[in-house]
């Protein structure tokens, strides 16, 4: 059964090779590179959030906290000048996992509505800590002075093309990893808990432990998204940990779909294109995005891919 894992890795490597070949062949445009980096960043945020929402049934409204935590801890470590990028990334992910562990331990026991807004509340707490702990974080002005990007293994992240390649690599790696998580026995346990926590407990699962583990894993991958974000803007800002970032992540998932594994990535792409298009068109961003969201939620009642898949299955079912 681990064949699925190997196949995913192979697919991911082909995608990465194609992307790099494109770059190396000189078919690069900086807007494509920018898009690739942002796609990798927000794709990680949305994909990891869906491990909670889609797989475990935990609707978190505070996922941006881990995104912000990843960005800040990475940025701060790099600014000390004593860390290499890979080491700092690992350390930043460890910090994020720790935060997720603490918040998760307080939140995952709660019923879903409590859970949604407690995660929101803890995110706002982190946001206000970041804004007020100026000596460490620079407050609302963010981490200043840029983030040093010493080259490692021949990769120089100060170059947009390298950064884009690295971002895509991280996203692919995480996609394979998260897909394996969902497909593994562990993932089956998460889905059991989502479907029916009561029965899951009766067959011997510790609902608390599995939820907490999912929360920490999701937080950690969101942290990696934050690391990429801080590399992209060469800094970290309190808005990374603001509730609007969480709102956007949920929006992305909704655009794509919760039940299809790659749905959040499709949603991320749609969201980014939509966002860029609307920003270029109007300053009434909220009005447009809000209306689109309402149409989607009240009209389709599910994500785009969910909707398409269901139709496709229904048609297939009708034919057979």
């Amino acid at each position: 059964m681990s064949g699925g894992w190997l196949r995913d890795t192979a697919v991911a490597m082909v995608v990465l090779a194609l992307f790099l070949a494109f770059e190396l062949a000189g078919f690069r445009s900086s807007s494509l590179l920018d898009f690739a980096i942002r796609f990798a960043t927000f794709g990680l945020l949305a994909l990891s959030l869906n491990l909670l929402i889609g797989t475990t049934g935990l609707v978190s409204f505070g996922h941006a906290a881990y995104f912000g935590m990843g960005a800040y801890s990475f940025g701060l470590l790099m600014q000390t000048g004593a860390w290499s990028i890979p080491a700092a990334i690992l350390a930043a992910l460890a910090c994020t996992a720790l935060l997720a562990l603490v918040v998760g331990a307080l939140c995952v026991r709660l019923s879903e509505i409590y859970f949604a807004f407690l995660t929101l509340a803890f995110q706002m707490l982190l946001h206000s800590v970041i804004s007020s702990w100026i000596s460490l974080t620079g407050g609302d002005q963010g981490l200043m002075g840029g983030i040093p990007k010493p080259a490692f293994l021949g990769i120089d992240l100060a170059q947009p093309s390298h950064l884009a390649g690295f971002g895509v690599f991280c996203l692919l790696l995480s996609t394979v990893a998260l897909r394996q998580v969902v497909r593994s026995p562990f993932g089956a346990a998460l889905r059991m808990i989502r479907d029916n926590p009561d029965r899951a407990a009766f067959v011997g699962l510790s609902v608390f432990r599995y939820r907490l583990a999912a929360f920490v894993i999701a937080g950690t991958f969101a942290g990696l998204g934050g690391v990429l974000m801080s590399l992209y803007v060469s800094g970290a800002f309190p808005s990374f940990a603001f509730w609007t970032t969480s709102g956007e992540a949920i929006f992305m998932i909704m655009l794509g779909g919760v039940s299809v594994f790659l749905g959040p990535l499709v949603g991320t792409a749609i969201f980014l294109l939509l966002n860029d298009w609307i920003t270029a068109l109007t300053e009434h961003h909220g009005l447009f995005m809000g209306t689109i969201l309402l149409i989607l939620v009240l009209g389709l009642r599910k994500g785009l891919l969910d909707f398409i898949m269901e139709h496709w299955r229904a048609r297939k079912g009708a034919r057979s």
Partner: protein
Amino acid sequence: MSGGRLQLQNLRKSFGGVVATDDVSLTFEPGTLSAIIGPNGAGKTTLFHLITGKLPVSSGRVLLDDAEITGLDRRDIVRRGIGRAFQVANLFPSFTVAHSLAAGLMAHEGRTASLFRGFPPKDIAARAEEVMELCGLTHLAATESRHLSHGDQKLLDIALALALSPKVLLLDEPTAGMGPDERWRMIERVHKLWEARGLTLVFIEHDMDIVFRIAQSVRVLRYGAVLAQGTPEEMRRNPAVIEAYLGAEHAL
């Protein structure tokens, strides 16, 4: 695989001031098939909740093979060998039948912590296959639970409990909500399972024809207390039971 002895000693449960279970002492011998009957609100389901740890007991003890399991976490109680199926099928709606059983098996054996294997592993899939065979669900292996018929959902619920190889299996109204034909098919199936596995089986049932056809012994509850117990024949002669519950129709 063989059945275990389940003993309830002076079990009490009250909610606020209301007594739901009143000093219940019962013993279910290994490998027996017993029915619990009683009017609505007699505390039958509550009793199951107490045995399986879904509700904490107010006082009294629950013993499985002479080891106390009172107050244990419900997961541990399941591990010790008490399985349970529910009055309303309690399933994992998005799982197929085969995957439900496989997931249940893995969870039970503490093998769901693995991140690196696939799901379900071959050995587990084979065992799930066995259970499906036993329960007559093989032809539905690839159907998602939520798309099953009512009867098949109840059957899967039992299969899920059975998959965990319990020593004692508690069935809460296995035939609830079924038509007469379906009922009998179901009860035959249950009877076969009991024979095949040799476990201690306790079921709550309202259909007296079923009870008197298959149960070896019957316990009658009323107002949370044990009104009477004995063989079906004894119960059908017991005036208190007839008056309280059976009525003339089932009396001998």
